[in-house]
């Protein structure tokens, strides 16, 4: 079986926070010495039917500057519903959050408040939808590439979402 998180030093201690308390939790962690935002990403739990749908994961590291040792990591999970932006941006704590939040917006459509206007990071402006959402079909067509309907003309089944497989 998979190991508990504490046994994996790269993963660190798992914590949870509600969206309204996430920023304060991050600020408090930063004050306690977690000085590097190693990663920030999201997971869409739509296919597992979880509510709320998204989970944003912040990964922090306490780095000792002189010895280069990692003195501990924390992963903060924040459950976020679909729709209006509820998460406060942590751009003021770590400037790298700018690009990471842009990527999360681009891929999942999770918005952030208290930051400059958010722009897609990897996709282009005219892109429709958020590709890493579970209800975004893997072979969906985009208007710039065409056809505008998003359907491939030659293969009607190509554009459907593959149903979840049931296992015994």
């Amino acid at each position: 079986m998979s190991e508990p998180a504490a046994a994996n030093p790269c993963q660190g201690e798992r914590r949870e926070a509600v969206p309204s308390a996430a920023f304060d939790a991050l600020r408090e962690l930063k004050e306690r010495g977690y000085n590097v935002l190693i990663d920030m990403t999201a997971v869409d739990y739509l296919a597992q039917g979880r509510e709320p749908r998204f989970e944003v994961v912040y990964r922090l590291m306490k780095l000792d500057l002189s010895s280069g040792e990692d003195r501990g990591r924390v992963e903060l999970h924040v459950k976020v519903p679909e729709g209006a932006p509820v998460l406060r941006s942590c751009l003021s704590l770590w400037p790298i959050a700018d690009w990471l939040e842009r990527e999360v917006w681009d891929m999942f459509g999770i918005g952030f408040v208290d930051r400059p206007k958010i722009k897609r990071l990897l996709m282009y402006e005219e892109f429709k939808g958020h590709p890493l959402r579970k209800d975004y079909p893997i072979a969906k067509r985009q208007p710039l590439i065409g056809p505008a309907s998003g359907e491939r003309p030659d293969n009607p089944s190509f554009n459907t979402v593959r149903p979840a497989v049931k296992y015994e």
Partner: protein
Amino acid sequence: MNNAPRAHKTFMLNMGPQHPAMHGIVRLVLEAEGELIRDVDVEIGYLHRAFEKHAEAETWNNVVPWTDRLNYVSPLINNVGYAMAAEKLAGIEVPERGQYIRTIACELSRVTDHLTCVGASAMELGAFTVFLYLIKAREFLYQLIDNLTGARITTNYARVGGVKADLPQGFEEKCRDVFKKVREAVRDSDKLLTKNRIFMDRVDKTGVISKADALAYGITGPFLRSTGVPYDVRRAHPYLVYDRLDFDIPVGRTGDNFDRYLVRLAEIEQSLRIMEQCFKQMPPGKHSLEVAEMKNAFEFEDAGKFGNTALLKKYAAKVDQTLEGGGRLERGGIDSPSRSAVLPAKEETYGNIEGLMNHFELIMWSWGIRVPAGEAYVAVEGGNGELGFHIVSDGSDRPYRVRCRPPCLYIMAALPILLKDSYIADIIPTFGSVNMIGGELDR
């Protein structure tokens, strides 16, 4: 002449997406005032190939070839990083020899990565000879990688639970010859560049980043080490067999382009040292997990006749060498529930029916290995820094979510502060030392 002060006007300059001095497809929108850069806007995403989306649609082992295309200068490190994350979730331990082989593979890749970075940025500064020396050394290493994995770039070498195959015959001797040539090339380049006035003028005190900025931007790898922070995932969280090996972590002082060049050159030597120690320490034995549970082929047939196919996928087919179905009476079924996770060696797949069946079972859609539900994050030291894989499994044969933490994304995000108030000509050495790899940056 009019002595009134002229208002300085800035103008916009587009560099890229296709530009001969850019190592990949990336666009810099510069706001320049004459030769001085006042502001930079970095636009990425031109090489986005939806790695993370594709990974959700592939079985666990089929994601490995996609990881080759992340950092295509050091694909073996990506292979290993992904496989380690899947193993962490599945609770699989790779045999010791497999771990040594993976370490060697990773270090080979790290050397090619650094050689490319130093060689290419030297070429852009006019040192074409150095480029030829280093790329020639890289070519020898690519031949080793070709010998080891069967491909130069698209290596696809790691498997969940092990590696594709054991080291080829005489690999150690070949390595020893090549290491000699690599050391020679590095020494020659060092002589040509390190005290060279033309080179120093371009790289010394340009592209400076402070420790605080590097931390704020989450930068790791040679870039962070050039500022004097000796953070290296191989030392901070030893994975594979790095805790048994003796190696140094070179650090710089000022965090400029020159220090990054020195750190990379020094790391090449350390990687070669690591590989030499691995060859000495490496135990004989298995390189991957053995195919654990076998059932005689005729039992598949019997079970199929009764419509009892649910359990079949737990076993590998075992066929008598004579293919006559001997042993039908002597052996009962093996009913251990544990099952193999590892693809059989290619010789097995192509050479006998049991390997073929086993391979087929693992590859068939919705029949492959199942990784228990859960979440894991595993980091390895990539060519550019901490390469992390955050994997979520829902207990099925495919990953639910694969997130790759690309080390050079963080450096690219910090590019504006590296370039601000420097000259347009400084973009070339600074951007070269970032070692942007489009495949990894845009995934």
